[in-house]
Protein backbone atom coordinates (compact mmCIF):
# COMPACT_ATOMS: atom_id res chain seq x y z
CA UNK A 1 0.00 0.00 0.00
CA UNK A 2 2.63 2.53 1.00
CA UNK A 3 4.18 2.29 -2.44
CA UNK A 4 1.07 3.77 -4.04
CA UNK A 5 0.86 7.53 -4.45
CA UNK A 6 -1.06 9.66 -1.97
CA UNK A 7 -4.18 11.60 -2.91
CA UNK A 8 -2.34 14.84 -3.62
CA UNK A 9 -0.30 13.19 -6.34
CA UNK A 10 -3.18 11.62 -8.22
CA UNK A 11 -4.80 13.28 -11.23
CA UNK A 12 -8.14 14.85 -10.42
CA UNK A 13 -11.32 12.89 -10.74
CA UNK A 14 -9.59 9.56 -11.38
CA UNK A 15 -8.84 10.51 -14.98
CA UNK A 16 -6.39 8.10 -16.62
CA UNK A 17 -4.02 10.10 -18.79
CA UNK A 18 -2.05 7.29 -20.40
CA UNK A 19 -3.96 5.55 -23.19
CA UNK A 20 -3.64 1.78 -23.39
CA UNK A 21 -1.82 1.58 -20.08
CA UNK A 22 -3.47 -1.75 -19.30
CA UNK A 23 -0.46 -3.25 -21.09
CA UNK A 24 1.28 -2.94 -17.75
CA UNK A 25 -0.99 -5.67 -16.45
CA UNK A 26 0.14 -9.01 -17.78
CA UNK A 27 -2.63 -11.57 -18.03
CA UNK A 28 -0.32 -14.52 -18.68
CA UNK A 29 -1.07 -16.00 -15.27
CA UNK A 30 -4.67 -16.67 -16.35
CA UNK A 31 -3.45 -19.27 -18.81
CA UNK A 32 -3.72 -23.00 -18.26
CA UNK A 33 -3.13 -24.18 -21.81
CA UNK A 34 -0.74 -22.40 -24.09
CA UNK A 35 -1.15 -21.97 -27.86
CA UNK A 36 1.86 -22.78 -30.00
CA UNK A 37 1.88 -21.86 -33.69
CA UNK A 38 3.54 -24.16 -36.14
CA UNK A 39 5.02 -21.62 -38.55
CA UNK A 40 5.44 -24.23 -41.23
CA UNK A 41 1.84 -25.33 -41.15
CA UNK A 42 0.48 -21.81 -40.87
CA UNK A 43 -0.95 -20.46 -44.13
CA UNK A 44 -1.11 -16.81 -42.92
CA UNK A 45 -4.88 -16.60 -43.16
CA UNK A 46 -5.11 -14.05 -40.32
CA UNK A 47 -8.01 -15.82 -38.62
CA UNK A 48 -6.34 -16.45 -35.27
CA UNK A 49 -5.15 -12.85 -35.18
CA UNK A 50 -8.67 -11.67 -35.97
CA UNK A 51 -10.37 -13.61 -33.22
CA UNK A 52 -7.99 -13.27 -30.31
CA UNK A 53 -9.99 -11.30 -27.75
CA UNK A 54 -7.03 -9.76 -25.96
CA UNK A 55 -5.33 -9.10 -28.52
CA UNK A 56 -2.44 -11.45 -27.82
CA UNK A 57 -1.47 -12.40 -31.34
CA UNK A 58 0.75 -10.02 -33.21
CA UNK A 59 1.21 -9.71 -36.91
CA UNK A 60 4.88 -9.20 -37.68
CA UNK A 61 6.45 -8.03 -40.92
CA UNK A 62 8.87 -10.88 -40.75
CA UNK A 63 9.57 -12.91 -43.85
CA UNK A 64 9.50 -16.65 -43.44
CA UNK A 65 10.01 -19.53 -45.80
CA UNK A 66 8.29 -22.68 -44.71
CA UNK A 67 9.85 -26.12 -44.89
CA UNK A 68 7.75 -26.87 -47.93
CA UNK A 69 9.31 -23.82 -49.57
CA UNK A 70 6.48 -21.33 -49.34
CA UNK A 71 7.66 -17.76 -48.75
CA UNK A 72 5.60 -15.50 -46.52
CA UNK A 73 5.99 -11.80 -45.77
CA UNK A 74 4.37 -11.93 -42.36
CA UNK A 75 4.35 -14.06 -39.30
CA UNK A 76 1.85 -14.48 -36.52
CA UNK A 77 3.27 -14.72 -33.06
CA UNK A 78 1.64 -15.24 -29.70
CA UNK A 79 2.34 -12.60 -27.11
CA UNK A 80 2.58 -14.81 -24.07
CA UNK A 81 2.46 -11.83 -21.74
CA UNK A 82 -1.21 -11.40 -22.53
CA UNK A 83 -2.48 -14.69 -23.95
CA UNK A 84 -5.12 -16.00 -21.54
CA UNK A 85 -5.17 -19.41 -23.17
CA UNK A 86 -8.78 -19.34 -24.31
CA UNK A 87 -8.02 -21.59 -27.27
CA UNK A 88 -10.10 -19.67 -29.81
CA UNK A 89 -7.09 -19.34 -32.10
CA UNK A 90 -6.44 -23.09 -32.09
CA UNK A 91 -10.11 -23.84 -32.57
CA UNK A 92 -10.49 -21.45 -35.51
CA UNK A 93 -7.25 -22.16 -37.33
CA UNK A 94 -8.37 -23.75 -40.60
CA UNK A 95 -5.21 -25.84 -40.97
CA UNK A 96 -4.79 -26.81 -37.31
CA UNK A 97 -1.47 -25.03 -37.12
CA UNK A 98 -1.99 -24.07 -33.48
CA UNK A 99 -1.64 -26.61 -30.72
CA UNK A 100 -2.79 -26.01 -27.17
CA UNK A 101 -0.13 -27.46 -24.93
CA UNK A 102 0.28 -27.81 -21.19
CA UNK A 103 1.65 -24.64 -19.65
CA UNK A 104 4.87 -25.35 -17.82
CA UNK A 105 5.85 -22.61 -15.43
Amino acid at each position, binding site marked *: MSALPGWRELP*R*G*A*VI*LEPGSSVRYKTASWRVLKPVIDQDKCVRCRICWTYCPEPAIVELDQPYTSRSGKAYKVMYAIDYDYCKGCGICAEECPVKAIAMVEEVR
Partner: protein
Amino acid sequence: MGKVMPLSGNYAVAYAVKAVDVDVVAAYPITPQTAVVEKLAEFVANGELDAEFLHVESEHSALSAVVGASAAGARVFTATSAQGLLLMYEIMHIASSSRLPIVMGIATRAISAPINIWCDHSDFMAASDTGWIMFMALNAQEAHDLIIAAYRIAEDPRVSIPVAIGYDGFVVSHTLEPVDVIEKEEALEYAPKRVSRPTLDPDRPVTMGSLASPDWYFEFRVQLQDAIENSRETISEALREFKRRFGREYREVDDFYTDDADVVIVSMGSTTGTALVFIEEARRSGMKLGLLNIRLFRPFPEVEVVKYLENAKAVAVIDRAVNAGSSFVGPLYSDVVVSAFKKSLDIPIVNYVTGLGGRAVVKSHIEFIAKHAYSLVGKKMREVKKHYSFIGVRE
Protein backbone atom coordinates in the same frame (compact mmCIF):
# COMPACT_ATOMS: atom_id res chain seq x y z
CA MET B 1 -23.22 48.76 -16.09
CA GLY B 2 -25.95 46.72 -17.59
CA LYS B 3 -29.56 47.46 -18.16
CA VAL B 4 -32.19 47.31 -15.42
CA MET B 5 -35.12 45.09 -16.42
CA PRO B 6 -38.12 43.77 -14.54
CA LEU B 7 -37.35 40.06 -14.30
CA SER B 8 -38.53 37.04 -12.38
CA GLY B 9 -35.92 34.93 -10.64
CA ASN B 10 -36.15 32.35 -13.40
CA TYR B 11 -35.62 34.93 -16.13
CA ALA B 12 -32.82 36.55 -14.17
CA VAL B 13 -31.08 33.17 -14.15
CA ALA B 14 -31.64 32.71 -17.89
CA TYR B 15 -30.17 36.15 -18.60
CA ALA B 16 -27.10 35.24 -16.57
CA VAL B 17 -26.66 32.00 -18.49
CA LYS B 18 -26.87 33.96 -21.71
CA ALA B 19 -24.36 36.51 -20.46
CA VAL B 20 -21.71 33.87 -19.77
CA ASP B 21 -22.22 32.46 -23.28
CA VAL B 22 -22.78 28.82 -22.34
CA ASP B 23 -22.16 26.26 -25.05
CA VAL B 24 -24.59 23.53 -24.06
CA VAL B 25 -27.88 23.68 -22.17
CA ALA B 26 -29.79 20.52 -21.26
CA ALA B 27 -32.82 20.77 -19.04
CA TYR B 28 -36.23 19.33 -18.46
CA PRO B 29 -39.28 21.32 -17.40
CA ILE B 30 -40.57 21.18 -13.84
CA THR B 31 -42.45 23.75 -11.81
CA PRO B 32 -41.18 26.18 -10.57
CA GLN B 33 -38.01 26.03 -12.69
CA THR B 34 -39.70 25.75 -16.12
CA ALA B 35 -39.46 29.38 -17.15
CA VAL B 36 -35.63 29.25 -17.10
CA VAL B 37 -35.67 26.55 -19.74
CA GLU B 38 -38.28 28.35 -21.79
CA LYS B 39 -36.37 31.60 -21.71
CA LEU B 40 -33.13 29.91 -22.69
CA ALA B 41 -34.92 28.16 -25.55
CA GLU B 42 -36.15 31.56 -26.67
CA PHE B 43 -32.63 33.01 -26.55
CA VAL B 44 -31.30 30.16 -28.64
CA ALA B 45 -34.26 30.31 -31.01
CA ASN B 46 -33.67 34.04 -31.59
CA GLY B 47 -29.96 33.65 -32.06
CA GLU B 48 -29.25 35.65 -28.91
CA LEU B 49 -27.39 32.73 -27.40
CA ASP B 50 -25.18 30.48 -29.51
CA ALA B 51 -25.62 27.20 -27.67
CA GLU B 52 -26.74 23.66 -28.29
CA PHE B 53 -30.06 23.21 -26.54
CA LEU B 54 -30.87 19.62 -25.66
CA HIS B 55 -34.53 18.71 -25.24
CA VAL B 56 -33.66 15.79 -23.02
CA GLU B 57 -36.25 13.26 -21.95
CA SER B 58 -35.56 13.47 -18.21
CA GLU B 59 -33.53 15.30 -15.60
CA HIS B 60 -31.33 12.25 -15.26
CA SER B 61 -30.42 12.69 -18.90
CA ALA B 62 -30.18 16.47 -18.50
CA LEU B 63 -27.40 16.18 -15.98
CA SER B 64 -25.85 13.22 -17.79
CA ALA B 65 -25.75 15.23 -21.01
CA VAL B 66 -24.09 18.23 -19.39
CA VAL B 67 -21.62 15.88 -17.72
CA GLY B 68 -20.72 14.59 -21.18
CA ALA B 69 -20.58 18.09 -22.64
CA SER B 70 -18.47 19.41 -19.79
CA ALA B 71 -16.11 16.45 -20.10
CA ALA B 72 -15.73 17.42 -23.75
CA GLY B 73 -14.73 20.94 -22.72
CA ALA B 74 -17.97 22.92 -23.09
CA ARG B 75 -19.40 25.50 -20.69
CA VAL B 76 -22.73 24.03 -19.63
CA PHE B 77 -25.91 24.78 -17.75
CA THR B 78 -28.89 22.91 -16.39
CA ALA B 79 -31.66 23.74 -13.94
CA THR B 80 -34.31 21.85 -12.05
CA SER B 81 -36.48 21.51 -8.94
CA ALA B 82 -37.67 18.86 -6.51
CA GLN B 83 -38.39 15.52 -8.25
CA GLY B 84 -36.07 16.51 -11.05
CA LEU B 85 -33.24 17.13 -8.65
CA LEU B 86 -33.82 13.77 -7.02
CA LEU B 87 -33.67 12.13 -10.43
CA MET B 88 -30.31 13.85 -10.90
CA TYR B 89 -29.04 12.77 -7.52
CA GLU B 90 -27.02 9.81 -8.80
CA ILE B 91 -25.28 11.94 -11.39
CA MET B 92 -24.67 14.88 -9.04
CA HIS B 93 -22.16 12.78 -7.12
CA ILE B 94 -20.52 11.67 -10.34
CA ALA B 95 -20.27 15.27 -11.59
CA SER B 96 -18.50 16.46 -8.46
CA SER B 97 -16.21 13.47 -8.08
CA SER B 98 -15.31 13.77 -11.74
CA ARG B 99 -14.51 17.41 -10.99
CA LEU B 100 -16.59 18.87 -13.79
CA PRO B 101 -17.37 22.62 -13.53
CA ILE B 102 -21.09 22.36 -14.21
CA VAL B 103 -23.47 25.12 -13.09
CA MET B 104 -27.06 24.39 -12.13
CA GLY B 105 -30.00 26.48 -10.98
CA ILE B 106 -32.39 25.05 -8.40
CA ALA B 107 -35.76 26.74 -8.02
CA THR B 108 -36.48 25.17 -4.66
CA ARG B 109 -39.58 23.10 -4.17
CA ALA B 110 -41.04 20.50 -1.84
CA ILE B 111 -40.49 16.82 -2.51
CA SER B 112 -43.35 14.35 -3.04
CA ALA B 113 -45.41 12.76 -1.47
CA PRO B 114 -47.91 14.23 -1.42
CA ILE B 115 -46.95 15.94 -4.61
CA ASN B 116 -46.57 19.66 -4.01
CA ILE B 117 -45.11 22.21 -6.36
CA TRP B 118 -44.53 24.97 -3.83
CA CYS B 119 -41.48 26.26 -2.07
CA ASP B 120 -39.46 24.67 0.65
CA HIS B 121 -35.87 23.49 0.82
CA SER B 122 -36.33 19.70 0.79
CA ASP B 123 -34.83 19.37 -2.67
CA PHE B 124 -31.88 21.68 -2.06
CA MET B 125 -31.07 19.98 1.22
CA ALA B 126 -31.33 16.52 -0.31
CA ALA B 127 -28.50 17.52 -2.63
CA SER B 128 -26.32 18.86 0.16
CA ASP B 129 -24.21 15.73 0.43
CA THR B 130 -23.34 15.50 -3.25
CA GLY B 131 -20.05 17.41 -3.15
CA TRP B 132 -21.35 20.46 -5.02
CA ILE B 133 -20.68 24.03 -4.01
CA MET B 134 -24.11 25.40 -3.10
CA PHE B 135 -25.46 28.92 -2.70
CA MET B 136 -28.93 30.14 -1.84
CA ALA B 137 -29.91 33.41 -3.47
CA LEU B 138 -32.26 35.80 -1.71
CA ASN B 139 -33.82 37.42 -4.75
CA ALA B 140 -33.77 37.59 -8.52
CA GLN B 141 -30.82 39.99 -8.69
CA GLU B 142 -28.82 37.73 -6.50
CA ALA B 143 -29.77 34.64 -8.51
CA HIS B 144 -28.58 36.44 -11.63
CA ASP B 145 -25.33 37.56 -10.07
CA LEU B 146 -24.51 34.29 -8.35
CA ILE B 147 -25.00 32.29 -11.54
CA ILE B 148 -22.32 34.42 -13.17
CA ALA B 149 -20.05 34.11 -10.14
CA ALA B 150 -20.67 30.35 -10.17
CA TYR B 151 -18.93 29.97 -13.52
CA ARG B 152 -15.90 31.85 -12.30
CA ILE B 153 -15.73 29.67 -9.19
CA ALA B 154 -16.49 26.32 -10.84
CA GLU B 155 -14.00 26.79 -13.67
CA ASP B 156 -11.23 28.11 -11.46
CA PRO B 157 -8.44 25.55 -11.86
CA ARG B 158 -7.99 25.45 -8.10
CA VAL B 159 -11.62 24.42 -7.69
CA SER B 160 -13.08 22.49 -10.64
CA ILE B 161 -16.23 21.54 -8.77
CA PRO B 162 -19.84 21.97 -9.91
CA VAL B 163 -21.88 24.79 -8.40
CA ALA B 164 -25.61 24.94 -7.69
CA ILE B 165 -27.47 28.18 -7.12
CA GLY B 166 -30.74 27.77 -5.22
CA TYR B 167 -33.52 30.36 -5.20
CA ASP B 168 -36.90 29.97 -3.61
CA GLY B 169 -39.61 28.53 -5.82
CA PHE B 170 -42.33 31.05 -6.70
CA VAL B 171 -41.26 33.55 -4.04
CA VAL B 172 -38.13 34.28 -6.07
CA SER B 173 -38.57 32.24 -9.24
CA HIS B 174 -41.86 33.88 -10.18
CA THR B 175 -41.72 37.32 -8.62
CA LEU B 176 -40.82 40.26 -10.83
CA GLU B 177 -38.10 42.54 -9.57
CA PRO B 178 -35.96 45.16 -11.19
CA VAL B 179 -32.77 43.33 -12.11
CA ASP B 180 -29.57 44.97 -13.22
CA VAL B 181 -28.66 42.65 -16.06
CA ILE B 182 -24.96 42.07 -16.62
CA GLU B 183 -23.91 42.25 -20.27
CA LYS B 184 -22.03 39.48 -22.03
CA GLU B 185 -18.74 41.36 -22.37
CA GLU B 186 -18.63 42.21 -18.68
CA ALA B 187 -19.72 38.74 -17.65
CA LEU B 188 -17.06 37.08 -19.77
CA GLU B 189 -14.39 39.43 -18.54
CA TYR B 190 -15.29 38.52 -15.00
CA ALA B 191 -15.83 34.82 -15.73
CA PRO B 192 -13.75 33.94 -18.81
CA LYS B 193 -14.09 30.43 -20.17
CA ARG B 194 -11.33 28.33 -18.70
CA VAL B 195 -10.69 24.74 -19.62
CA SER B 196 -7.67 23.82 -17.58
CA ARG B 197 -8.37 20.12 -17.36
CA PRO B 198 -8.12 17.04 -19.55
CA THR B 199 -11.06 16.79 -21.93
CA LEU B 200 -12.38 14.14 -24.31
CA ASP B 201 -10.18 14.80 -27.30
CA PRO B 202 -9.08 12.26 -29.93
CA ASP B 203 -5.70 13.98 -30.13
CA ARG B 204 -5.05 13.34 -26.43
CA PRO B 205 -7.09 10.32 -25.45
CA VAL B 206 -7.92 10.06 -21.76
CA THR B 207 -10.14 7.67 -19.84
CA MET B 208 -12.71 9.24 -17.53
CA GLY B 209 -15.01 7.55 -15.07
CA SER B 210 -12.69 4.65 -14.36
CA LEU B 211 -13.26 1.92 -11.81
CA ALA B 212 -11.30 2.52 -8.62
CA SER B 213 -10.62 -0.39 -6.32
CA PRO B 214 -10.26 -0.10 -2.52
CA ASP B 215 -6.61 0.78 -3.22
CA TRP B 216 -7.64 3.97 -4.98
CA TYR B 217 -11.24 5.07 -4.35
CA PHE B 218 -10.63 6.62 -0.94
CA GLU B 219 -7.96 8.96 -2.30
CA PHE B 220 -10.35 10.46 -4.84
CA ARG B 221 -13.01 11.12 -2.24
CA VAL B 222 -10.41 12.86 -0.10
CA GLN B 223 -9.34 14.90 -3.10
CA LEU B 224 -12.88 16.19 -3.49
CA GLN B 225 -13.22 17.00 0.20
CA ASP B 226 -9.92 18.84 0.10
CA ALA B 227 -10.91 20.76 -3.01
CA ILE B 228 -14.28 21.86 -1.69
CA GLU B 229 -12.73 22.85 1.62
CA ASN B 230 -10.10 24.89 -0.18
CA SER B 231 -12.64 26.47 -2.50
CA ARG B 232 -13.55 28.89 0.31
CA GLU B 233 -10.69 31.17 -0.60
CA THR B 234 -11.57 31.18 -4.30
CA ILE B 235 -15.20 31.78 -3.47
CA SER B 236 -14.55 34.86 -1.35
CA GLU B 237 -12.09 36.12 -3.93
CA ALA B 238 -14.71 35.70 -6.65
CA LEU B 239 -17.33 37.50 -4.57
CA ARG B 240 -14.92 40.34 -3.75
CA GLU B 241 -14.06 40.71 -7.39
CA PHE B 242 -17.75 40.70 -8.22
CA LYS B 243 -18.28 43.61 -5.88
CA ARG B 244 -15.35 45.48 -7.35
CA ARG B 245 -16.68 45.13 -10.88
CA PHE B 246 -20.42 45.26 -10.41
CA GLY B 247 -20.85 47.03 -7.10
CA ARG B 248 -23.05 44.45 -5.45
CA GLU B 249 -21.67 42.76 -2.39
CA TYR B 250 -22.32 39.14 -1.56
CA ARG B 251 -20.78 37.49 1.43
CA GLU B 252 -20.91 33.87 2.53
CA VAL B 253 -23.27 34.95 5.31
CA ASP B 254 -25.09 38.23 5.95
CA ASP B 255 -25.33 39.47 9.50
CA PHE B 256 -27.91 41.90 10.74
CA TYR B 257 -27.74 43.36 14.25
CA THR B 258 -25.76 40.46 15.61
CA ASP B 259 -23.35 42.66 17.58
CA ASP B 260 -25.61 43.16 20.55
CA ALA B 261 -28.29 40.54 19.91
CA ASP B 262 -29.52 38.26 22.68
CA VAL B 263 -31.14 35.98 20.19
CA VAL B 264 -29.85 35.37 16.68
CA ILE B 265 -32.14 33.87 14.10
CA VAL B 266 -30.41 31.84 11.38
CA SER B 267 -32.24 31.45 8.11
CA MET B 268 -31.78 30.85 4.44
CA GLY B 269 -33.65 31.96 1.36
CA SER B 270 -36.72 34.16 1.29
CA THR B 271 -37.49 33.60 4.98
CA THR B 272 -34.62 35.93 5.67
CA GLY B 273 -36.56 38.87 4.26
CA THR B 274 -39.59 38.18 6.45
CA ALA B 275 -37.37 37.72 9.47
CA LEU B 276 -35.56 40.97 8.83
CA VAL B 277 -38.79 42.95 8.66
CA PHE B 278 -39.90 41.51 11.96
CA ILE B 279 -36.54 41.98 13.63
CA GLU B 280 -36.38 45.64 12.71
CA GLU B 281 -39.83 46.16 14.20
CA ALA B 282 -39.01 44.16 17.30
CA ARG B 283 -35.84 46.12 17.85
CA ARG B 284 -37.88 49.31 18.03
CA SER B 285 -39.86 47.72 20.85
CA GLY B 286 -36.70 46.70 22.67
CA MET B 287 -36.24 43.05 21.70
CA LYS B 288 -32.55 42.59 20.91
CA LEU B 289 -32.76 40.28 17.95
CA GLY B 290 -30.14 39.56 15.35
CA LEU B 291 -30.27 37.72 12.04
CA LEU B 292 -27.88 35.60 10.05
CA ASN B 293 -28.58 34.76 6.43
CA ILE B 294 -26.77 31.73 5.05
CA ARG B 295 -25.87 32.41 1.43
CA LEU B 296 -23.12 29.84 0.95
CA PHE B 297 -24.36 26.47 2.14
CA ARG B 298 -21.60 24.20 0.80
CA PRO B 299 -18.86 24.42 1.85
CA PHE B 300 -20.62 25.46 5.04
CA PRO B 301 -19.17 28.78 6.26
CA GLU B 302 -18.76 27.59 9.81
CA VAL B 303 -16.16 30.13 10.88
CA GLU B 304 -18.30 33.06 9.73
CA VAL B 305 -21.43 31.59 11.26
CA VAL B 306 -19.87 31.07 14.65
CA LYS B 307 -18.34 34.52 14.56
CA TYR B 308 -21.82 36.04 14.49
CA LEU B 309 -23.26 33.70 17.09
CA GLU B 310 -20.53 34.13 19.64
CA ASN B 311 -22.21 36.95 21.51
CA ALA B 312 -25.71 35.51 21.40
CA LYS B 313 -27.48 33.98 24.37
CA ALA B 314 -29.74 31.81 22.26
CA VAL B 315 -29.92 30.83 18.59
CA ALA B 316 -33.01 30.01 16.56
CA VAL B 317 -32.36 28.09 13.36
CA ILE B 318 -35.15 28.12 10.82
CA ASP B 319 -35.33 25.19 8.43
CA ARG B 320 -37.63 24.61 5.49
CA ALA B 321 -36.89 20.91 5.26
CA VAL B 322 -37.00 17.86 7.50
CA ASN B 323 -34.59 15.01 7.78
CA ALA B 324 -37.09 12.70 9.43
CA GLY B 325 -35.68 10.49 12.14
CA SER B 326 -32.29 12.15 12.30
CA SER B 327 -30.81 13.50 15.50
CA PHE B 328 -31.14 17.02 14.19
CA VAL B 329 -34.43 17.16 12.17
CA GLY B 330 -33.62 20.37 10.31
CA PRO B 331 -30.62 20.09 7.98
CA LEU B 332 -29.45 23.69 8.42
CA TYR B 333 -29.75 23.20 12.15
CA SER B 334 -27.30 20.30 12.05
CA ASP B 335 -24.65 22.43 10.39
CA VAL B 336 -25.14 25.30 12.83
CA VAL B 337 -25.06 23.05 15.89
CA VAL B 338 -21.93 21.24 14.79
CA SER B 339 -20.20 24.52 13.95
CA ALA B 340 -21.10 25.95 17.35
CA PHE B 341 -20.10 22.84 19.21
CA LYS B 342 -16.68 22.89 17.61
CA LYS B 343 -16.18 26.30 19.20
CA SER B 344 -17.75 25.16 22.48
CA LEU B 345 -20.57 27.64 22.27
CA ASP B 346 -22.72 26.36 25.08
CA ILE B 347 -25.89 28.30 24.41
CA PRO B 348 -29.33 26.98 23.52
CA ILE B 349 -29.56 26.41 19.79
CA VAL B 350 -33.02 25.35 18.74
CA ASN B 351 -34.61 24.41 15.50
CA TYR B 352 -37.86 25.68 14.02
CA VAL B 353 -39.12 23.89 10.98
CA THR B 354 -41.56 25.95 8.99
CA GLY B 355 -42.94 26.70 5.57
CA LEU B 356 -43.02 23.14 4.26
CA GLY B 357 -44.70 22.66 0.91
CA GLY B 358 -45.20 26.36 0.32
CA ARG B 359 -46.91 27.12 3.63
CA ALA B 360 -46.41 30.87 3.95
CA VAL B 361 -43.82 31.94 6.49
CA VAL B 362 -45.26 35.11 7.97
CA LYS B 363 -44.18 37.65 10.52
CA SER B 364 -46.21 36.08 13.31
CA HIS B 365 -44.25 32.86 12.85
CA ILE B 366 -41.00 34.73 13.22
CA GLU B 367 -42.41 36.48 16.24
CA PHE B 368 -43.31 33.19 17.84
CA ILE B 369 -39.87 31.79 17.06
CA ALA B 370 -38.11 34.86 18.45
CA LYS B 371 -40.13 34.84 21.65
CA HIS B 372 -39.68 31.15 22.15
CA ALA B 373 -35.93 31.42 21.66
CA TYR B 374 -35.87 34.40 24.01
CA SER B 375 -37.41 32.25 26.72
CA LEU B 376 -34.30 30.07 26.56
CA VAL B 377 -31.84 32.86 27.20
CA GLY B 378 -29.62 32.03 30.15
CA LYS B 379 -29.91 28.29 29.69
CA LYS B 380 -27.26 25.89 28.50
CA MET B 381 -27.74 23.58 25.55
CA ARG B 382 -28.25 20.51 27.72
CA GLU B 383 -31.02 22.26 29.65
CA VAL B 384 -33.11 22.61 26.51
CA LYS B 385 -35.92 20.06 26.64
CA LYS B 386 -37.14 20.24 23.07
CA HIS B 387 -34.70 20.99 20.30
CA TYR B 388 -37.13 21.36 17.48
CA SER B 389 -40.67 22.40 16.79
CA PHE B 390 -42.88 22.85 13.78
CA ILE B 391 -44.16 26.36 13.26
CA GLY B 392 -47.30 27.05 11.30
CA VAL B 393 -48.65 23.54 11.27
CA ARG B 394 -52.14 22.62 12.49
CA GLU B 395 -52.17 20.39 15.55
